[in-house]
């Protein structure tokens, strides 16, 4: 009996060492892709069918208002094109680096979630074939959503900004203080190593700041919700409201650096 237990323990240790390497994990995710993707499609079809039944009248009204909005947006595009040209001219005059020009955007659909409640990760239907790399940032609703941590051929794993393992260099928009953002839960993040001298204000926006250009600057992460400082402590305790809703987010945008 003892031998059997020992064998079992060794087997578990062996499997842990063998299977927890990123490459093996990626193969595992790719194997799941043919199951997860059709399930997400089926789920969409069902929810669309039921929402169609429920909200036919509301949909017609929404469609009409969307048509109006499209026209308004078309007009806005014309004025934005004019502004873009003007902006380009001014940038050239100021010799300003156009950081976002070095990046391209890929949209992807969320096809899966973490099977436990402790790691905040999602799976998307875009992988190496679409040029995604480990470390690319992911946006949703115009804000930072997460970072690519594993890339398979067809799917990728995104670590959400609400996960405690998520860390990124950031800055405050108003006071331009460099800070370090770390995930806390789906509602808030925390700024670590904030010294008492730093000008951190409630209501200020925290946005990305890259020192090596591996990701674009200025992507909003969240809003500072509280700043606590106890006299005599080395650092301030700063919370950032992020209000992440992974279960109601369907599509994300992956920011990838253009190949030179």
């Amino acid at each position, binding site marked *: 009996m003892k031998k059997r237990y020992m064998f079992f323990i060794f087997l578990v240790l062996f499997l842990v060492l063998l299977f927890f390497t990123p490459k093996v994990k990626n193969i595992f995710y790719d194997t799941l892709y043919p199951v997860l993707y059709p399930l997400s499609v089926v*789920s969409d079809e069902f929810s669309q069918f039921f929402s169609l039944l429920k909200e036919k009248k509301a949909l017609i009204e929404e469609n009409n208002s969307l048509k109006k909005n499209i026209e308004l947006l078309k007009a806005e595009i014309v004025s934005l094109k004019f502004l873009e040209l003007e902006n380009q001219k001014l940038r050239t005059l100021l010799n300003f680096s156009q950081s976002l020009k070095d990046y391209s955007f890929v949209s992807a659909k969320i096809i899966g979630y973490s*099977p*436990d409640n402790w790691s905040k990760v999602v799976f998307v239907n875009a992988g190496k074939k679409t040029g995604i790399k480990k470390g690319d940032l992911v946006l949703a609703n115009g804000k930072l959503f997460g970072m690519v941590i594993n890339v398979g051929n067809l799917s990728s794993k995104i670590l959400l900004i609400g996960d405690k393992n998520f860390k990124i260099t950031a800055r405050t928009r108003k006071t331009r203080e460099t800070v370090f953002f770390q995930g806390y839960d789906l509602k808030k993040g925390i700024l670590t190593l904030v010294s008492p001298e730093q000008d951190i204000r409630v209501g200020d926006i925290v946005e990305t700041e890259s020192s090596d250009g591996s990701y674009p600057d200025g992507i909003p992460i969240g809003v500072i919700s509280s700043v606590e400082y106890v006299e005599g402590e080395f650092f301030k305790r700063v919370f950032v409201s992020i209000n992440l809703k992974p279960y109601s987010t369907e599509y994300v945008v992956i920011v990838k650096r253009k190949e030179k």
Partner: protein
Amino acid sequence: MKLYILALLILIFQTSVLIKYITVSNFAPDFLSILTILYVLRHSTYSSLKFGGFIGFLQDLFSPSFSVANLVSKLLMVIFTTSVKRVIFVSNFAVQFLIIALLSAVDIFLKVIFVYFETGFFYLSLEFFAYIFLNLIVFGVYYIINEHKKG
């Protein structure tokens, strides 16, 4: 073997977008924990350790960093349930209900400890009750269906 395939299917369901329809306060029930406990109540210790290890290992494959939190948590679940099984009459609904509630809480606590060692954050929230509540609901539904089948 059938139960191992069932565990795989549940894992796929828990990973798929279908799970979002049964979340409360951004928490989803852990069907695999309930399956593990129910398995232990009906099988030997050795067989349960294998099954719990298998489930924990599968869940850990999805974790963002090198982590064995689920593996350890599931193995402890097996050990705890086995020791309870030896001293209490566990086929009683109330006892099973309590075991599920208690082990869900232990599961939370273990993972909080793991997160603390990984990141330095000790984080306990009232929202964790949503997780225990969901697990109990899933168990309740299973029990009703099972009783209905027997009847």
